[in-house]
């Protein structure tokens, strides 16, 4: 699967989930239609999105998605057409939420970010785990081998549904051992 698209350069660290989507927009029960709230909690967020209306890849600095567990952060990114975030590090919960929603959280060395913030477009091959800039330069990255499958086929809930019988068997063993 290739994610190819324009880059939204988000040149800041510690973009927290309150900046991605403020809490007062968490009042729904569905996962769709949240893109209109994306980055409304960020100073200059609306201008940045307006300047890059068709971007599908975010390049940013360390600790992206820190703070709240709200999956609304991932849902609002997906709804605006984002399919990948490239950063030196991610907060754990956002990292898991991204994989579970078809957003590739791509970790690259912090020294690469300055250059990546300047490229207009990126092509990301999720299968071969390579990222190609318009000048042809290629960066390798590593995806979590299990969660990569959530991106490429099926998703998290389908995987979990397939585990139910194994979990029941394990639990029966545990209860047996306890008696």
């Amino acid at each position: 699967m290739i994610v190819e698209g324009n880059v939204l350069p988000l040149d800041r660290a510690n973009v927290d989930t309150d900046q991605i989507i403020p809490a007062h927009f968490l009042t729904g029960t569905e996962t769709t239609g949240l893109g209109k709230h994306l980055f409304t909690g960020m100073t200059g967020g609306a201008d940045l999105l307006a300047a890059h209306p068709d971007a599908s890849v975010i390049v940013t600095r360390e600790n992206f998605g820190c703070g709240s567990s709200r999956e609304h952060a991932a849902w609002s990114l997906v709804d605006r057409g984002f399919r990948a975030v490239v950063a030196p590090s991610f907060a754990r919960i956002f990292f898991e939420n991204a994989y579970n929603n078809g957003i590739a959280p791509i970790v690259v060395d912090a020294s690469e970010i300055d250059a990546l913030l300047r490229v207009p477009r990126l092509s990301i091959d999720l299968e071969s785990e390579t990222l190609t800039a318009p000048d042809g330069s290629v960066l390798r990255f590593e995806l979590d081998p299990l969660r990569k499958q959530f991106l490429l086929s099926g998703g998290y809930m389908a995987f979990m549904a397939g585990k139910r019988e194994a979990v029941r068997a394990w639990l029966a063993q545990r209860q047996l051992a306890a008696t």
Partner: protein
Amino acid sequence: MPKSLFEKVWDAHVVEPLAGGNALVFVDRVVAHEITTPQGALEIERRYGDELFDPARIVAINDHVSPAKDTETAIQAKVLRDWAKRHGIVLYDVGQNGICHVVAPERGYVEPGMTLACGDSHTCTLGAFGAFALGVGSTTQGGAMLAGCLVLQRPKVMRVTLEGRLQNGATAKDLALTVVATLGFKGGTGYVLEYAGDALATLSMDERMTLCNMAIEAGATTGMVGPDETTYSYLRGRENQPTGDTFERNVARWRALVADPDASYDRELRIDVSALRPMVSWGTNPGESVPIDGVVPAAANPESLRYMDLEPGRALRTIEVDQAFIGSCTNSRISDLRAAADVLRGRTVSIPTIVTPGSQAVKRAAEREGLHDVFQDAGALWTHSSCGPCLGMSMGVLAPGARCISSTNRNFPGRMGTGGRVHLASPAVVAASAVLGRIGSPDELGAVALVEAAR
């Protein structure tokens, strides 16, 4: 092989190892609230025949905006309510509810050695019981409701050894802020913070919950405190806990849930608790905190300074505040309210001050002690239990540029309202600041002895 506390709990819950260092980890308890549960519940209803792995392992709590403030939040509460009723899930609703991280333990749903997941990042609070308690997204929570498990990368373990005893007006909140300020806002990422050291024995369950609550603010997976007599006393006789021999047999089992003396850790951190002073945040993440006697650091992040309208070298005690808030999953338990009341007794607040108990049970306990009179006599607002102004989702929202001294856990830009500025502190410091109209501590009011007595 010697094991850490975390390893003991983890190893007892791994159903199977998965590719890439992941594991399928069994979840003993799911705590479900109205903001992040409906999405996963509705997916299970639509695509998986509405079949839950085990409804008896789930406890549901309407907590963030309860009672509902508008049609949308009323629908969230209704979805949770209808779902709980349909599956026979215990629900704490308007009248008996509060913040899920306060209600779940006080109702006896959290035990040592347990694994627990909730669609809320501050679930780490419950690691105070020696549980592995994890904040997760809605889909991950949904997976736990569907299949009883989480997919997790095994975290590394950092031992945080706490030596000495809190004194000089320092509280568990100041300890929590110190941990985050020491590690930095992302310094705990990938780690479980396993607390150790002789200071732990002096901390109550309320204080341990405050400490563990802020593990996520250092990016940590969660925090954990091994169970001891304080833990067992808290749980003994509590509702939803067994009684008599059954409970004591559990205690005997829980006594094994301590780190082995020669367990190895991926990283070590030591903190001399005796040296701590009250802490206050100056910036836009909880790691940007310094002792209250200090100044905004010279090397402060310019973006944080701009947002907070502060300059390096500014003494914290000179910063005027427009609002004060005492509450949240960090500091809304009865001991927090006592600490604030001891400062406010016989004094008057000079700025709008909101006091929000963490649960209706805390509210009633406080009222039996007359704390509601203390707050209201001082001119503060005494509300029903909820997350309150902490995340700018319901009441008490800040105006752009307004500054709030707050006993909460996050000072992110816009957290308590677009453009609003938040300074994090302990309930005692918030109360003193509410009187002074600027950041200040109880000792400025001659009230430090009272804070010590409350501990």
